[in-house]
C-alpha cells in the first residue's frame, strides 16, 4: 500500500503498461518532454523513448485516426486528449471508425485503443475545460466508457483499459487529480466494468461517478447527521453500466438519486433512471431523481459551484425522494 495522488497513480499505471507490453504506446499533444499539461505522462518519454511516448501535431482527429492505424498494425495506442472540450474534432474518427472497426470487419480487427482525457469541472477554468461529454460516448455502440474516482481505481483501471481489446474512453476527473489515496499495487482489482458500493446504506441510493463520488460521500456523511442512511454507488463503468449492482441497490433502498456534472437533458442520468424505473418498478417508493448540471453551456467559473451538484442540491433531492 502506498499513498498516491490520482495523477501519480495514472502515471504509475501507464508506466506499468508500457513495461508490460512493448506494443503499448502513448500519443498526444505535449505528452513528451512536458509530460502533459497535467503531468500525467511525466518522465515516461525519458524512460521509454520518443517512439513510445509520442508528441503529436496539434490535431485531435489526426491523433485518433493514426492511433487506429497503429492498432491495425498491432499496437495498443493510449492517446491523450489534452482537455475533454477538445475531443470533438476527433468525434468522427471515434464514433464512425474506432467504435466500429471490429464490427465492420466481422470481428477481424480489434481496436485496443484507449482515449484518455481529463474531464469535469471544479477547477476554475475557462470555457471548454470543465466539460462532461460522457453521454455522447455511452450512446455510441462499440465503445466502452469508464472513469475512476480515486487513485486506487485510477491505477488499475488504466491498466485494465489498456489491456482491453475493445476501445475505451477513459475520463479522468481533473479536480481529483491531486487528491491522495491508498493504492494497493498487488491485490487483484475489481473487474473494469463493475460498479462499487462505496458506502452501504438503507434509505436511498446515490448513483454517481468520477468527480462526484467524493461529493456524494460527503453528502452521505451530512445526511447521516440528520439520521438518513444513504448508499453511494460509484458506477466506474459508464458503458456498459453494471446493472446488477445498481438494481440490487435500488431494489433494496427503494429510492435513487443520480448525480452527474453533465447537463441533464439526454445525459447519462436519463439512461440510469430509465433502467432503474424498469428494473425496480415494484420496489421504487419514489421516482428516480437527477441532480446534474443545468441545460445551458458550462457557465463562467465563478458560477461553477452553483452549477455543479453539491451537498445541498444532493440532499435536497434526497429529501424530495424521501418525501414521496
Amino acid at each position, binding site marked *: 500500500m502506498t499513498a498516491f495522488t490520482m495523477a501519480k497513480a495514472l502515471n504509475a499505471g501507464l508506466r506499468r503498461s508500457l513495461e508490460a507490453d512493448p506494443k503499448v504506446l502513448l500519443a498526444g499533444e505535449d505528452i513528451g518532454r512536458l509530460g502533459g499539461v497535467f503531468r500525467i505522462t511525466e518522465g515516461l518519454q525519458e524512460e521509454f523513448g520518443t517512439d513510445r511516448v509520442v508528441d503529436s501535431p496539434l490535431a485531435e482527429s489526426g491523433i*485518433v485516426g493514426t492511433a487506429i492505424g497503429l492498432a491495425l*498494425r498491432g499496437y495498443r*495506442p493510449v492517446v491523450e486528449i489534452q482537455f475533454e472540450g477538445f475531443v470533438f474534432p476527433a468525434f468522427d474518427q471515434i464514433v*464512425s471508425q474506432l467504435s466500429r*472497426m471490429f464490427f*465492420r470487419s*466481422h*470481428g477481424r480487427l480489434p481496436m485496443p485503443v484507449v482515449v484518455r482525457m481529463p474531464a469535469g469541472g471544479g477547477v476554475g477554468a475557462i470555457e471548454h475545460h470543465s466539460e462532461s461529454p460522457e453521454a455522447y460516448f455511452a450512446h455510441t455502440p462499440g465503445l466502452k466508457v469508464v472513469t475512476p474516482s480515486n487513485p486506487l481505481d485510477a491505477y488499475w483501471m488504466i491498466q485494465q483499459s489498456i489491456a482491453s481489446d475493445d476501445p475505451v474512453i477513459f475520463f479522468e476527473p481533473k479536480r481529483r487529480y491531486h487528491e491522495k489515496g491508498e493504492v494497493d499495487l498487488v491485490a487483484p482489482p475489481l473487474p473494469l466494468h463493475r460498479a462499487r458500493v462505496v458506502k452501504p446504506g438503507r434509505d436511498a441510493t446515490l448513483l454517481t461517478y468520477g468527480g462526484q463520488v467524493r461529493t456524494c460521500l460527503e453528502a452521505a456523511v451530512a445526511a447521516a447527521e440528520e439520521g438518513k442512511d444513504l448508499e453511494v454507488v460509484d458506477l466506474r463503468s459508464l458503458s*456498459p453500466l453494471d446493472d*446488477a449492482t445498481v438494481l440490487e441497490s435500488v431494489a433494496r433502498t427503494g429510492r435513487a438519486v443520480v448525480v452527474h456534472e453533465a447537463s441533464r437533458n439526454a445525459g447519462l442520468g436519463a439512461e440510469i433512471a430509465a433502467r432503474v424505473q424498469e428494473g425496480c418498478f415494484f420496489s421504487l417508493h419514489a421516482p428516480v431523481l437527477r441532480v446534474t448540471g443545468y441545460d445551458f453551456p458550462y457557465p463562467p467559473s465563478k458560477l461553477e459551484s452553483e452549477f455543479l451538484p453539491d451537498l445541498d442540491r444532493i440532499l435536497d433531492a434526497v429529501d424530495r425522494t424521501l418525501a414521496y
Partner: protein
Amino acid sequence: MTPDTTEDEIVQLLTPAGERTANADFAFTGTDEDVAGYLRDMVLARRLDTEGTALQRKGELGLWCPLLGQEGAQVGSAAAVGPLDFVFPSYREHAVALKMGVDPLALLAPFRGTSMIDWDPRRLRFHLYSFVIGTQTLHAVGYAMGMQRDGVVGNPDPADNGATLVYFGDGATSQGDVNEAFVFAASYQAPVVFFCQNNQWAISEPIARQSRIPLYRRADGYGFPGVRVDGNDPLAVHAVTSWALERARSGKGPTFIEAFTYRMGAHTTSDDPTKYRLEAELAEWRAKDPIERTKAYLLDRGAIDQPFLDDLQAESDALAERMRTGCLTLPPPELPDMWSRAFAATPQYLATQRAAYVAYADSFLDAEVAG
C-alpha cells in the same frame, strides 16, 4: 475555373493511341508480360464493374460504385505494391481489391446488404473499404508509423522494407482529415504514398470546386513531393507509384500522387450524371481509355494476340457468371451474430439484450409451430 493542366506537368509513358513516350524523370521498367498482365487485370476489373452495375439494375444489389474509366490508375498502382506493403482503399477500388486477392463476391456483399466487409485485411494486406470520405488516410499514416516502429522502413535491403498506399478521391482532398494525414505523415516522415484518383468529379461537383490549382501541388505546402500522372496510363502510374513506394520504404517519407483520370460512369448507381455534366466531356475521355490504349500497344508490339484476347474474354465471362450466381447465394446475415461482433469482449448488457431478442424471435417460431 478549371485547374490548369499543362502537358509538362503530367507524367505520361503511353499515349492514348498506344504509343510509348519518354519522360525525363520516370521510366517504366516492366516487361511486355507485365503489361499484358495489366491489360488482363483492367479487363477483368471492368467486367466485374459492369456486372456490379447490372446486378444493381436487376435489384440484386442496393448500390454499386462503378470504377469505369479508372482501371489504369488502379491496376498500375496496385501492381507496384510489394510484399510488405499495406493498402488502404476508399470505396471504388475494385480493381485494386481484385489484385490484392479480394474475392469478387466479398466485394458485392456490403452492397447487397448481406454483410459488413467480409475479407481478411491482415492476410490480404488490403484494408476494409472506407465510406466516410478521407478517414482512411489517417489510418494509413498510423499504420505506416507502426511500420517505422517495427523496423520495416529504411533497411539496407529493400526486400525488408514496406510502406502503405492509400487511395482517395479529388473531393476528399478538401476534408480536414486528409490534410491532417499530410501533416502527420510529413512530421514523422511516415512511409506512406497518398494516391489521389482525380476523376474530375465529386458526385456533381467539378474538381474546380475543391481546388483552383492542380491537386498534386497540395503536397508542396506540406513539404513532400507531389506528382501528377496520367491516370489512364497504367505504365506511367506504375512507374510513379513504384518510385513513391520505394521512396517511402527507404525512409524518405511521404509522396502525393495525383492520378489524372475520369469517372466514366455515374458516381453510384443512384446517381444521374446527365444532370450535371456534358456528354462531350465523356466523349473526350472515352478517347483516352486505359484499356484501349494498352491493348493497342500490346497488339502493335505483337506482345498479345487474338487467342490471348479470347482467353481473356472467356475469363471475364466466367467471372461475370460467378458473380451472377454467387451473388444470389451470398449467405444471409443473422441478427444474433451482430451482438457478438460489437465487442471483442461482449458485455453482460449486450448478452442479455441478445438473449431477449432470441427469446422474442423464438416466440414467433413457437407460435408458428403451435399455429
